[in-house]
């Protein structure tokens, strides 16, 4: 029995260059680089999961949370009240770049250099477009709406009521609102100007109150999680450019391994898209 196993192992070692103990075998029929890319992505998935679980925990720990389709409702060109439209566009850009990446890998498998370079260039353009969108989104949140990692002007009403003053933007004096509705506290002359309102329902009916800033953690979580994802996109674009240049100069033709490098960066790029599915779910849909 034991000698059988040994003989078998000996055969396997023979079929691989250098033998098992010299790194010749390919466990799981995947090359070292590809296998390690999978394990790197697994560990990265845990990092992102840690972030998103922290988001969920903090969100559950406070009575109110900014409503996403109120917070993310601006669109380039001065459009407002377009809930989730812009992030849907961003999602589509990333999905499209994932598709072009699949095409680049497929062209690599049949050793078609022109095809690989063409589809990788499209992927790079998609990645840069996504980063551009994210830059616009961040700029709107920080520059126009004054949300930072330390302050969050997006609050949510816990009681129904009526506004006693307007803010010169969307809210006018006498506007009614219900519990669960989110609002944005605008800045006037560099300071936040919360509006006063009268509670109309519940045990506090008749009381005059002032808008409160939203949960502080929202800003920090948003910028850290989308920032960490954006950093992955940025480094992905950098690696895509390097590998695209290497493909264009013919480096991978010599290796004769079906452009495996393109396949590996492809795995990473799809993972970035995969993470976005869950960032999109936690921040924008739920």
């Amino acid at each position: 029995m034991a000698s059988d196993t040994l003989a078998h192992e000996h055969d396997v070692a023979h079929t691989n260059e250098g033998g098992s103990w010299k790194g010749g075998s390919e466990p799981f029929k995947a090359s070292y680089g590809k296998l390690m890319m999978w394990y790197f992505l697994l560990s990265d998935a845990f990092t992102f999961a840690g972030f998103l679980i922290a988001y969920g925990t903090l969100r559950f720990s406070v009575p109110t949370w900014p409503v996403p389709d109120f917070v993310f409702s601006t669109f380039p060109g001065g459009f407002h009240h377009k809930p989730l439209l812009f992030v849907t566009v961003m999602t589509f850009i990333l999905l499209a770049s994932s598709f072009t990446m699949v095409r680049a890998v497929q062209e690599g498998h049949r050793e078609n250099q022109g095809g690989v370079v063409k589809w990788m260039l499209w992927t790079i353009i998609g990645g840069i477009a996504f980063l551009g969108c994210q830059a616009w989104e961040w700029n709107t949140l920080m520059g126009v709406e004054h949300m930072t990692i330390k302050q969050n002007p997006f609050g949510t009403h816990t009681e129904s009521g009526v506004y006693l003053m307007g803010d010169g933007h969307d809210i006018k004096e006498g506007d009614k609102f219900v519990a669960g509705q989110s609002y944005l506290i605008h800045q006037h002359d560099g300071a936040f100007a919360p509006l006063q309102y009268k509670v109309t329902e519940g045990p506090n009916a008749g009381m005059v109150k002032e808008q409160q800033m939203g949960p502080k953690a929202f800003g920090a979580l948003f910028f850290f999680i989308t920032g960490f994802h954006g950093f992955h996109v940025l480094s992905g674009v950098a690696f895509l450019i390097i590998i695209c240049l290497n493909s264009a100069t013919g480096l991978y033709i010599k290796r004769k391994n079906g452009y495996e490098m393109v396949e590996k960066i492809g795995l990473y790029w799809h993972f970035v898209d995969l993470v976005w599915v869950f960032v999109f779910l936690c921040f924008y849909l739920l």
Partner: protein
Amino acid sequence: MSHLSYEQSKSLATKTIIILAVITVAEVLFALLGKGYIVEGLHFPLFLMGSVMIVMSIVKAYLIIYEFMHMKYEVPGLVKTVLLPTLLLVWAVIAFLSEGNYWNTSRSAVKNDVKIELSDTSKK
């Protein structure tokens, strides 16, 4: 490696991206529908919204991992070593969300007590 011909895998990729795009649009429309943006006054319960969104996202994740990342064509050992550890996250999500919920209830209990004291002192 894939046993499909070049043409087959090309059409499979096109099919997958179309399904992914359709699910994304469905998610966004469902989110807006459930919150009363499309039909005035229509609101779905949060539990329904959450579970439908999570299921649709998991379908998207499956398509990306199995079709785009070619997990479908890897040997079972590789699939298990990569996917099984992520099951730990199921525990983590349940444990941490219930912990967050506990913070919320205990925090609101404390807040109510303080409120009574504050309303006395604020009249000075």
